[in-house]
């Protein structure tokens, strides 16, 4: 057997390598390249080693944005996961109601993200917005999302929940529908309460889809950009300046590409690390016990 001849098969992977190189490796390496230079303008740069990393890691505005980001993602998961599961549990199981609720739930997911922001800007306007005017004029509560940090956050959370809870609900619904009827029959015969049925049948059987929902929701909310950019522009003050918004301000606003490159890489590592941790933890849930 001639080993050399077989190795030619590796050439078959070239198209994929080229594709991955252009789609991932080269852009990533460009960022790595930026991150070790101080860039003054096109064609004017200076190699500075790790200086940009040290600088960005000590930047108090980054720390603020990071904590804000964690708070935001945490709230998103805390609200959307249980709410999505509740919606899935309440959805009809047969008849025309199934298609209706599926379409209704899918709608927010089909709207372009910056359009969502635009819709909500109008929706919450205190003078003419349906929600804004209702709260201000009918309920008599003064509410304006551009006024205080609290109001901006409430509006942003409402928008985020409205936009993305559907995804969790749809995934959870798919998980629920996949549970064979016989489990419910056995639970009935065992005298299980609705809560016990949920806790010991539905929830464990949904673990797979809920893991995916959690990872997707975490990643998306952690990288959120378009909606708050359109709705609040990061304000009032820096109250809704999340990592992406701050990153874009650095990169395009101040043309600080070196710092922005270092920031991007740190951002990237944080997201990957957290996803890995989530995945490991969720895989271990219910499996760790005595075997």
């Amino acid at each position, binding site marked *: 057997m001639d080993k050399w001849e077989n190795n030619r098969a590796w050439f078959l992977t070239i198209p994929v390598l080229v594709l991955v190189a252009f789609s991932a490796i080269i852009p990533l390496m460009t960022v790595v390249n930026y991150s070790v230079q101080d860039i003054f303008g096109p064609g004017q740069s200076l190699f500075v080693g790790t200086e940009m990393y040290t600088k960005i890691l000590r930047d108090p505005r980054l720390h603020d944005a990071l904590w804000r980001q964690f708070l935001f993602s945490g709230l998103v998961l805390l609200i959307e996961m249980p709410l999505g599961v509740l919606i899935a549990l309440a959805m009809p199981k047969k008849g025309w109601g199934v298609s209706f609720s599926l379409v209704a739930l899918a709608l927010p997911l089909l709207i372009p993200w910056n359009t969502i922001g635009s819709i909500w800007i109008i929706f919450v306007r205190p003078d003419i917005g349906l929600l804004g005017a209702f709260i201000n004029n009918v309920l008599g509560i003064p509410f304006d999302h551009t006024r205080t940090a609290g109001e901006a956050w409430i509006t942003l959370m409402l928008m985020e929940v409205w936009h993305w809870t559907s995804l969790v609900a749809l995934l959870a619904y798919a998980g629920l529908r996949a549970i064979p009827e016989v489990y419910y029959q056995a639970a009935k*015969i065992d005298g299980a309460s609705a809560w016990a049925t949920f806790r010991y049948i539905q929830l464990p059987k949904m673990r797979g889809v809920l893991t995916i929902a959690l990872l997707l929701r975490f990643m998306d909310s952690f990288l959120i950009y378009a909606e708050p950019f359109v709705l609040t522009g990061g304000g009032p003050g820096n109250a809704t300046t999340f990592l992406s918004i701050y990153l874009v301000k650095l990169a395009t606003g101040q043309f600080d590409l070196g710092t922005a490159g270092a920031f991007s890489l740190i951002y990237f590592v944080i997201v990957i690390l957290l996803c890995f941790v989530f995945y490991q933890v969720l895989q271990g849930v219910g499996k760790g016990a005595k075997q």
Partner: protein
Amino acid sequence: MSRIELNEISHSYLREPKGDTDYALKRIQSVWDDGGAYALLGPSGCGKTTLLNIISGLITPSTGRVLYGDLDVTALPPEKRNIAQVFQFPVLYDTMSVFDNLAFPLRNRHIDKNDISKRVQEVAEILDLTAFLKYKAAGLAADAKQKISLGRGLVRSDVAAILFDEPLTVIDPNLKWHLRRELKEIHEKLKLTLIYVTHDQMEALTFADKVMVMYEGEIVQIGTPQDLVENPEHTFVGYFIGSPGMNFMQCTLNGNVAQVDGAGIILDQKTADLGHKSQGKLELGIRPMHVELSSEQVKNSLPAKIKSVEDLGSYKIVTLNFADKILRAKLAEGASVPSDKAWLVFSPQWIRLYSDGRLVK
């Protein structure tokens, strides 16, 4: 509880059933004695599982009543009935240990902790699961999982009947036999009523004291395995039980002779009299093992042509052409088979007559 009585049970899965064909069950009338081992046997789609689910309360019948002893339970949900059910595929609570799985039905019924622990230990002992109690149920083999499903029924001291819906489908053949034996032992020890649904006649005949054969939504016969073999009350039972099934031939009666396409088969007087009294289309039935073959003409024998012989090791199946019909005969392993032409003897005591599919009697 004592016995289970089904009173004029009909069930349709449609909201507005029209004809007979819309019914999955048709006017089932039956009594199941306390402590009996019953098998519900029938082909797929004959209504076995529907009937089982009606007994357990998972389905409310369209019409009719279910009685446990003297108590009408038709409207009671499954958890209020003192029955347990084991399904085709093992149903486990994956995240729980074997112990917690077994304790689950008791915890749901708020039974004292010490009593639960004692009961679970007892049942684990019976089912040989003691060593696994601390394990995660999800990691066990299919037969152990199915035993846990059964165990969840056995732990409840109120349970008087356990229903099985083809419980051995996912079990390896060599373990099937073992598990069926264990079931029989448990039945003898605990004196519970067991109702066992299956489409496998071997399983039904070896497991049950009484077998109920179902066909198109009706119970066509209830009897001991011996009854089903010797006196099938419906042509379907004759065809379904036994391998190969009973031979059936359309016939007309002429005195005590049944005419089958020119050949006359002599019946005993009693059978012939019953045949004359019946109205419908007559069929003559005889089991392959009661068709005798000889190479020479003997008294009352009829000529037939041999088409093929299958040797199945412990017996032979001979396919014959008799009066333009295909017949099967089952012969002992050592029996000699004539090569081409044979003479058949139908012993009158084993000949049954059917009118419109039902045994004349």
